[in-house]
């Protein structure tokens, strides 16, 4: 009997090895080195090109230029599909077109955190929730790249895969996957020039930009919340933003708690009870929503995470 079990184990291991022939887990030091290189490359390397953002069936094309002028990083982004949108950042000054419909305040720590600068400044925190493995190599936008994957260490998040330019360390492609390794969201360059001289004209705004207020984000602690006792039971997620805002195209106000584990974000919305949102679980592909009523309040938790994560977060709130 025992021999049979071992025999099965061997077969099973054999299958696993065959299926993921090239996946090679990296040790913590090596993982940290890979992530840190990509994180700094996005800020220090000069590049220009265009990228595509895909979520579900929707696709949007963006033009991006990133240059260093007098030691200050400047980036210019333009949405090429539909209504024009522009984003210009010089150092930590941000201006946008059109002016956001609500009083948008950006957190200084995150103004530069758009693709391909996805990685958090503190990559070691990311490695508390994910392991990093090298999946293989591939040619992307005409450049040689190495494929890495962030594999969740628990059942509260999904894997993420990214392609790193061998020459510069820049992330050329980022894929957020669901529980069946299907695509949830992806960012990928469709054309890129790395290094060399970037035409200054590329950084010039096309539309009349308005500057956006950038704040020094406070270090938030869930224990400081006056109204709610928040006891998250999911490890790895930190509260990175709390704001009171009106929902887009709606007049009602919600309190928005935004949590991040360094690779994915999760939102908890608190508002007066509203019967339009179904209580319990709902999903759109791998994106989950869990809503529950607490007294006269509606709590809804939404994110590109498994069902168990949104449910646990929604249940982590109790009235003080």
């Amino acid at each position, binding site marked *: 009997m025992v021999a049979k079990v071992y025999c099965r184990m061997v077969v099973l291991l054999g299958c696993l090895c065959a299926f993921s022939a090239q996946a090679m887990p990296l040790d913590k030091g090596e993982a940290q080195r890979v992530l840190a290189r990509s994180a700094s490359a996005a800020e220090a390397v000069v590049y220009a090109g265009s990228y595509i953002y895909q*979520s579900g069936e929707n696709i949007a094309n963006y033009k991006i230029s990133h240059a260093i002028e007098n030691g200050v990083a400047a980036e210019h982004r333009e949405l090429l599909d539909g209504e024009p949108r522009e984003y210009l950042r010089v150092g930590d000054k941000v201006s946008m077109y059109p002016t956001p419909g609500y009083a948008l305040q950006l957190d200084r720590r995150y103004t530069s955190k758009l693709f391909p600068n996805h990685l958090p400044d503190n990559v070691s925190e990311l490695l508390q929730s994910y392991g990093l493995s090298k999946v293989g190599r591939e040619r992307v936008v005409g450049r040689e790249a190495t494929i890495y994957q962030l594999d969740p260490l628990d059942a509260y998040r999904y894997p993420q895969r990214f392609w790193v330019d061998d020459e510069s360390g820049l992330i050329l492609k980022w894929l957020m996957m669901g529980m069946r390794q299907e695509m949830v969201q992806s960012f990928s360059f469709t054309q890129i020039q790395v290094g060399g001289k970037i035409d200054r004209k590329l950084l010039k705004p096309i539309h009349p930009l308005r500057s956006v207020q950038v704040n020094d984000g406070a270090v938030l602690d869930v224990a400081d919340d006056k109204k709610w006792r928040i006891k998250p039971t999911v490890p790895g997620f930190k509260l990175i933003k709390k704001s009171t805002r009106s929902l887009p195209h709606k007049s009602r106000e919600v309190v928005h708690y935004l949590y991040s584990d360094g690779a994915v974000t999760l939102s908890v919305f608190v508002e007066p009870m509203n019967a339009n949102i179904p209580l319990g679980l709902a999903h759109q592909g791998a994106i989950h929503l869990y809503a529950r009523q607490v007294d006269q309040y509606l709590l809804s938790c939404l994110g590109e995470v498994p069902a168990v994560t949104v449910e646990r977060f929604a249940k982590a709130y109790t009235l003080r």
Partner: protein
Amino acid sequence: MSEKISALMDYEVAPQDIAAVVDQLLASAEQQAQWHRWHLARDVIGQPHLAMSPDFMQKFAAKLAQEPVVIAPHRLRPRPSQWMPLAAFASVVFVGLLAWQLTLPSALPVDVLAQQKPVEIKSAEISPYLAAHRDGFSNPLASEQFAQAHFEAGEQH
């Protein structure tokens, strides 16, 4: 427990013990995952499932070949039924019952009826939340189309 799962897969558990082993199996997600992995491994190496005898397909094919081929099926002529008057009576009784039920208030409490209805997800109501979540901190450039929600009840399987 691994051995019991293994034995269960091979039909080596005594019939009176099967229920207990299945209960134990269901009690642990890890054991269920193992159960699934072993079946997967067995599928991969091409070992037949014991639920079917190894020559199942041959026997089935032989039986199928012996079935007569119906070229032009003729219609069975229905015999006039001796139940006809009874059926007519039953339909009158049924209409009466229906009319009686419709005039009486439903005996079921309203909230039970409401629970039986499938949960309707108003995706248009979820869109603003999705938009707010998306531009949370990382994507103030997201175009409107990305907030289109198509939610359904339950979790992803």
